[in-house]
């Protein structure tokens, strides 16, 4: 807010834009390495994100799955530099087109947010200001980041409201958030995130509160954005159906770490980590026999203050071995984009460069295999 004056924004803008590198399609747009997030608490600090590393390539949709509390939102809030005040990024780099966001001055970061980078937050109720009309909130973003004004800006806003499937978009512009249903509000938020055509759009559970028919519309819209404009999307969801429908690649998170990553087919058809297997087995499906009991994962997500010593999943894992309770497993390369952080891969003799690392727990994912 403090740097909100237009002049400042524009000046910072040009200098920053010059420093951003061009990225070819399919190349990494965002490279996160060794990201560590720490909670500052009276009783002592502790980490909630433990050295996470991943890439988002140009023109892809990357899905992020995992149970509640696995660190999906915090990882992405750290990328956007929007962590709650008691949390801090204490390690790692966040390279966006060659610029390390972790070290960017806040005023530059403000220019990036809403323009190049945009995020749709999990809690839709806090994202809109109840005192302003839908139109004025959209126009503010458009004027600030697209440098379009008056009628021209209005046309962009109306166009995006129509694209998210809202009827009578002209009328919606003059309505206040309370006059809209929950589903309509959520689509307004998505329209605001999309209207500046961000290179990287981060969506945190944006469709959880929506009806399936509207959810399907929003997923189409996100896919159109990516196909037509070649933008990149990170899509956080706990719904495996949404992930299978939308994403090119997927990362599975557990206990503040990435436990498996791969193409969507790797994750669904060549499932390797016991946690991913567990997530898939506990979901009711639309095909096959109906009445078979589901297979829940026993136990609960670990409390970040009481992380188990070795593999974070060990207390709940049906395949847990001795080594699992002693050392954090390294990430094993399974070929292509597929990698898995589980000692079973070593036991199975999976070929891969990380297999050669001595069986000593080192920092995870120092270099993601597909960097």
């Amino acid at each position: 807010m403090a740097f909100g004056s237009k002049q400042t924004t524009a000046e910072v803008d040009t200098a920053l834009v010059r420093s951003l590198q061009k990225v070819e399609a399919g190349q990494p747009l965002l490279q996160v390495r060794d990201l560590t997030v720490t909670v500052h608490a009276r009783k002592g600090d502790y980490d909630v994100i433990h050295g996470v590393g991943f890439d988002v390539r140009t023109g892809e949709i990357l899905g992020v799955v995992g149970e509640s509390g696995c660190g999906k939102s915090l990882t992405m809030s750290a990328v956007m530099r929007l962590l709650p005040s008691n949390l801090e990024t204490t390690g790692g780099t966040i390279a966006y087109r060659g610029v390390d966001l972790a070290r960017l001055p806040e005023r530059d970061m403000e220019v990036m947010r809403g323009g190049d980078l945009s995020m749709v937050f999990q809690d839709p109720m806090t994202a809109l200001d109840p005192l302003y009309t839908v139109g004025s909130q959209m126009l503010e973003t458009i004027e600030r980041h697209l440098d379009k004004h008056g009628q021209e800006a209005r046309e962009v806003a109306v166009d995006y409201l129509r694209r998210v499937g809202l009827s009578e978009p002209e009328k919606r512009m003059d309505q206040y958030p309370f006059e809209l249903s929950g589903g309509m509000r959520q689509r307004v938020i998505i329209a605001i995130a999309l209207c500046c055509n961000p290179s990287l759009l981060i969506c945190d559970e944006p469709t959880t509160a929506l009806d399936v028919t509207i959810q399907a519309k929003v997923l189409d819209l996100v896919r159109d954005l990516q196909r037509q404009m070649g933008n990149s999307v990170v899509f956080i969801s706990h719904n495996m159906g949404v992930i299978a429908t939308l994403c090119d690649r997927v990362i599975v998170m557990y206990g503040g770490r990435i436990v498996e990553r791969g193409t969507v087919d790797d994750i669904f058809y060549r499932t390797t980590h016991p946690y991913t297997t567990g997530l898939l087995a506990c979901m009711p499906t639309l095909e096959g026999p109906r009445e078979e009991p589901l297979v829940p994962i026993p136990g609960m997500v670990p409390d970040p203050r009481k992380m188990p010593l070795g593999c974070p999943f060990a207390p709940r894992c049906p395949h847990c071995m001795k080594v699992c309770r002693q050392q954090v497993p390294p990430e094993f390369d399974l070929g292509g984009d597929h990698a898995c952080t589980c000692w079973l891969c070593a036991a199975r003799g999976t070929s891969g460069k990380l297999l050669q690392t001595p069986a000593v727990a080192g920092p995870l994912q120092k270099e993601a295999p597909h960097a």
Partner: protein
Amino acid sequence: MPSTNDAAPLLEVTGLAKAFPMRVGRHKQKVPVVEGFSLYMQRGESVGLVGESGCGKTTVGRTICGLYERDGGTVRIDGHEVGASREDEALVHKTIQMVFQDPYTSLDPRKTIADILAEPLKVQRLAPKDQWRELAGKAVESVGLKRDCLDRYPFSLSGGQRQRIAIARALICDPQLVICDEAVSALDVSVQAQVLNMLADLQAKTDVAYLFISHDLAVVRHLCSRIVVMYLGRIVEEASTDELFSHPRHPYVEALLSAVPEPDPQRARAKRRVELEGELPPLTDLPQGCIFSTRCPFATKECLAARPQLEECAPGHRVACTRWRDLQLKGTDELVEAIAAPAAPAAES
């Protein structure tokens, strides 16, 4: 009118109606939110109630169990027509219990779990005071928790544990029907699976019936043998679960099935979607004729002429669509067009 009768269905609802005061233009007037809702349920049966947000599912649940006064229609329990007398009210409370969506607000934060569970026993005078604790202990065990949680407060439990307590509270009076309103929607997939399994186990043991309100079709498919689909306060289709998923007869139901994301990439890629135009019309300004006509891809003049009533299109299968005879709608498997056999099946382990 039959009096209580073992051959009668456990619950029989006919022509249920509920209206709420809403602002129409400048005036407030009573607007029907649910109309002509009919349902029968047998002992030990699970029926799913699905439909878009605001279509009246919660209103139906609350009206059936007497939390809202009904504006029309009849409710029969074991063939006995429920009136306004205190005895009838007590019969409803004894037979039907409701579990609400939000495990965070539905439990009183100032009471221990033991007190929360004793409350219905106290109010309905179902057991003497010295038995409350024992019954509460049995109830928490029946939902898969340990007795030591009895002296804890709701805030010290996880969301899944709290939802189990809410279910235990509904079960403690030994009801014959539990209305679960989005009871697993706020839970994580793994906890959701635990609660769904628990509900199925309890049903196998006690023959309790569930009216399961949810917007998640995969969850409803898993738990329920019959499904009722609502749109704008009316039933548009009702069928056995397998029939509804394989041969939907209402265009809205086909659109709904087509919109459910498939948790399998190959099926997801091959799935055809039926798009719906426009928004849900406001309850204060319902469309002429068929209530779905403003969004239906198949609407004709005929559909606008008169409102189609629910009619039986196959045994146990009811639909409210003027054109059900000539439409060839697709079920979930047909919506997923001929796909190549899946690649390698899920890996070892």
